């Protein structure tokens, strides 16, 4: 190894290039700008204004935050569902007048007056919600009209009641408490806001209705197609906004008792500014109550600071306007910029030097030497299956395969002509294995580990493992569960090819050539899922050894087969079984007489091997060249490798003509035949084997001759 290679290896092993892209992909990145802004603003105001951080001032700001915050939370909920509520300011003023009229003039009991006020707010929200949600009017224009209408109602009410409100006095400790009281030194309105914010956060993130709101905001059409009542959900958000505005108006009424005509004028702009600067998206679907609170705090600090800095006429409005513009710009630009930057830097190739590949074309004495043994393969289900990644047979000889449509397709023995969809599991079903009760356990790309029982009921086994401590992307979710096998004690060992990409992006993972894969264990007795091996190069086939003391697993981009010891002296360690395959290994399955079958999905090429030692080149390629022009690993021609317990290659089966099975991802031996599957094939192959045990079956090998009541 030259010093240059050695340096490249070190550099690509220890510099975490992949982190940048992963950080940019996190949802909490939305909060970076508001948090920075908040900290900067707080520092500026604290230094520029004496006493700004005094307890009294903080407490007063908190009281104002309480009122504005309620409105912003309501508005945020509307915005999350993709709408906008401009009527919040008028609704706030209406609540102010209503509460004051009921209390100061009509002398209602405080509780009843507050309840009635909130009812009025809800009614206004319902009108908005009905118009926008059910009649599908444009939210912006509709609420602009209600803004004006309600303002007119407020003016009419003021004309009648304002003088009487101003002269009426209330002597109620409850009313005083609402307006000026504190709980443990924290202003009541702020406490109320926090309670409502927590409740709102819980509803949005944990309850069905919250998810529906997010779904509608994310994509109305998709939400509708998913069966969500879009009108009702949209309407609901406006009602919530109306209620919260009314609540804020009530707090304002109790604080100032002033029925001025300026109440709530321009408040909608302040609220929108707060919602946006907090990082909520105008288009909906992206945002949170936490963001609303942060935006409220930023805007409140700013407004308080501007008043205290003694800015002249209109200057504060100008600053708020400028902040709003900035917020909109950030909302649009930052998100886009982040996405495009992430797309650029997410792919981070590593350094991978593979051992020299055995010569399989030019060296006829090699165990991998090319031949034409698959030429006379019998074809099953030609054109009836789309990409049978894995095939498996039950004791009765029925043939199951996992296809692209998310189905498990079954061909019935003995002639494999009759075809049926055994079960629809969804996702992209890949590796399969029978458990001791005859249930078919399936790894499903994009979903996790599932089981189809003999009554064809589909059940999730697990889709979540323990999260690694230092991983930035959430690696507890399974993105690409690939192949599995089951130990006699029922534990399922399965591979996840990569934690950074989905099934369709396998080629990007190949380009990276870094260890993104892992092996996960599911323990049915405890129900616990744990990752046992990490940093594997596209962990693929998994197969229990014949003695069940270890399992073999394939790492596709590393072109090697390893063994992981489950018991014995080497328990918990990994050793390489075949280090230098000529191609990219896929599934490994048991064969008769203590052997194993391995599918090579493709063969190595010198150019690609060399590219794997040039990460900078691959990075440049990924950034500058369109995906379909990339240097691809060769997955056009592969073969079947038959090997023994020690990794010695017994034979290789090639399809020299490339007509039927050039690329093979899985194969199963059953009663003297070998059944072949390929992830890009439109057929299943069957070929008669010589030199094998003609009675050997997979289920019997795992679960005994009389497993799950076979007929024999």
């Amino acid at each position, binding site marked *: 190894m030259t010093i240059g290679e050695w340096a490249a290896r070190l550099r690509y092993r220890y510099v975490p290039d992949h982190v940048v892209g992963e950080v940019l992909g996190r949802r909490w990145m939305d909060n970076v700008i508001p948090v920075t802004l908040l900290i900067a603003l707080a520092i500026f105001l604290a230094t520029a204004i*004496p*006493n700004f951080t*005094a307890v*009294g*001032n903080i407490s*007063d700001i908190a*009281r*104002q935050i309480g009122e504005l915050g309620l409105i912003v939370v309501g508005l945020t909920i509307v915005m999350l569902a993709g709408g906008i509520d401009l009527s919040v300011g008028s609704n706030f003023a209406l609540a102010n007048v209503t509460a004051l009229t009921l209390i100061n003039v009509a002398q209602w009991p405080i509780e009843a007056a507050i309840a009635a006020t909130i009812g009025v707010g809800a009614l206004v929200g319902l009108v908005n919600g009905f118009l926008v949600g059910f009649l599908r009017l444009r939210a912006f224009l509709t609420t602009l009209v209600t803004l004006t209408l309600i303002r007119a109602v407020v003016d009419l009410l*003021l*004309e009648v009641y*304002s*003088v009487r*409100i*101003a*002269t009426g*006095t209330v002597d109620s400790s409850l009313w005083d408490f609402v*307006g*000026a009281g504190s709980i443990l030194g924290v202003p009541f309105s702020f406490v109320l806001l926090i309670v409502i914010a927590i409740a709102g956060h819980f509803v949005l993130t944990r309850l069905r209705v919250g998810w529906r709101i997010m779904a509608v905001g994310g994509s109305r059409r998709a939400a509708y197609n998913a069966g969500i009542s879009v009108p009702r959900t949209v309407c609901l958000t406006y009602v919530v906004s109306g209620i919260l505005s009314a609540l804020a108006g009530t707090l*304002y009424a109790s*604080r*100032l*008792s*002033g*029925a*001025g*005509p*300026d*109440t709530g*004028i321009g408040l909608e702009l302040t609220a929108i500014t707060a919602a946006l600067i907090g990082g909520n998206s105008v288009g909906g679907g992206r945002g949170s109550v936490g963001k609303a609170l942060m935006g409220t705090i930023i805007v409140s600090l700013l*407004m*308080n600071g501007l*008043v*205290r800095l*003694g*800015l*002249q*006429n*209109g200057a*504060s*409005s100008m600053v708020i306007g400028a902040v709003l513009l900035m917020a909109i710009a950030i909302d649009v630009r930052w998100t886009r910029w982040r996405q495009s930057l992430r797309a650029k830097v997410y792919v981070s190739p590593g350094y991978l030097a593979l051992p020299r590949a055995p010569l399989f074309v030019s060296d006829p004495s090699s165990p991998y030497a090319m031949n034409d043994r698959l030429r006379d393969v019998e074809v099953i289900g030609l054109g009836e299956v789309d990409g049978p990644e894995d095939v498996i047979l039950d004791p009765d000889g029925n043939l199951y395969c996992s296809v692209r449509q998310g189905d498990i397709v079954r061909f019935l023995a003995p002639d494999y002509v009759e075809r049926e969809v055994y079960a629809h599991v969804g996702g992209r079903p890949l590796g399969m294995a029978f458990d001791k009760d005859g249930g078919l356990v399936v790894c499903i790309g994009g979903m996790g580990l599932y089981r189809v029982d003999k009554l064809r009921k589909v059940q999730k086994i697990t889709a979540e493992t323990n999260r690694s401590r230092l991983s930035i992307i959430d690696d507890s979710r399974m993105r690409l569960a690939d192949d599995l096998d089951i130990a006699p004690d029922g534990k399922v060992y399965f591979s996840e090819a990569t934690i950074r990409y989905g099934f369709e992006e396998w080629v990007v993972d190949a380009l990276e050539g870094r260890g993104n894969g892992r092996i996960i264990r599911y323990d049915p007795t405890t129900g616990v899922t744990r990752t046992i091996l990490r940093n594997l190069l596209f962990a693929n086939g998994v197969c229990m050894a014949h003695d069940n003391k270890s399992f073999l697993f394939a790492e596709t981009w590393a072109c090697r087969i390893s063994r992981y010891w489950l018991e014995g002296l080497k328990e918990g360690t990994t050793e390489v079984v075949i280090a230098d395959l000529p191609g990219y290994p896929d599934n490994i399955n048991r064969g008769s007489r203590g052997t194993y079958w391995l599918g090579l999905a493709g063969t190595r090429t010198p150019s690609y091997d060399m590219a794997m030692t040039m990460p900078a080149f691959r990075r440049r390629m990924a950034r500058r060249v369109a995906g379909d022009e990339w240097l691809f690993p060769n997955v056009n021609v592969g073969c079947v490798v038959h090997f023994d317990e020690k990794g010695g290659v017994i034979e290789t089966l090639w399809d020299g003509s490339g007509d039927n099975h050039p690329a093979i991802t899985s194969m199963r031996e059953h009663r003297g035949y070998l059944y072949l599957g390929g992830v890009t094939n439109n057929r299943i192959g069957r070929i008669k084997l010589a030199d094998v045990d003609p009675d050997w079956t997979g289920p019997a090998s795992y679960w005994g001759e009389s497993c799950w009541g076979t007929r024999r």
Partner: protein
Amino acid sequence: MRKRQIAVAFGFALSLTGMAHAVAAGIDDPRRADYFKTFEGKTIAFVPVTMGIDLTEGWAAVMKKQADRLGMKFEIRDPHFSADAGAQAITSLIAEKPDVLVVHNPDVQSYAKLLKRAEEAGIHVVQINMRSNYNSDVYVGADWIGIGEAEAQAIVDKCGAGTSGKVAILQGQPTSGSDSGMMKGADNVFSKHPEIKVVANQAGEWDATKAHSVISTVIQQNPDLCGVVGFWDVMDLGAAAAIKESGKPIALVTSGGGEQMACDNVEKGVFEKEIAYQVMDQGRDLNDMIVTVLESGQQPGKLKAVVYSPQLVISKDTLRPGLCWSSKDLKK
């Protein structure tokens, strides 16, 4: 060499004149030093309804002049017509503890609790022109009931027998300290004059544009309108425009700060009459009361003084140069 000689001679001459002064020494006023010490470093905070209008700019200018003279700090917090922003400003001022808080209330209710809190926190509260329901140390301002009566009387004189007797009242904001007083004054007079019919009583919210739309609507509804009682000259310019557009001889009586604009408009016949409270004099009154509360050494909330500004009637009969003050001169 020569220069030094001149300098010495000059110094000698100076010392001679000094001796001459020493001979004519006056008597020191023992209270003078204390007087200036009382104000040194004190802070006056002013929360108007808005800046940028003749009244608040005038008061602020006069107060600032005295504050500068006496070494006091003078601060303005401008809520720009927002009662909420004003309440915020007062709330934070309570935390900052200025020595005197001069407040121009947007209405009688909004700041009442806050002003009480401010006095409890040890801040002298002076209310200017628009009072609140809470009576603080000092109220300086117009006698609104008196102004209301004077305005109403002017309209009664104009719209008596031989006219329709139809009158519109254009309030600013009904819950403000000024409007509630003026309404009371107008009622006092109109109730004795059954021939006057009040056909409209609406609020223009201190906004000339709104006043314009209110009065043009009233004129359309009552083409034979005889007079308008306006509550603030700046806003009433909008009403005047509506009257001018209608082309009808409708009398507009107003009240205001007696700025040059008022005199000009009375001269042009736009205003029939303005019952004015003179802003410069009010500023003087404010200054005197600020000095008084600070010198008194009393706890805030004890004094409860009221200083009504005298009425100045601006009409064609009283017009003379120098009757009105000019906000242009404030900067000089």
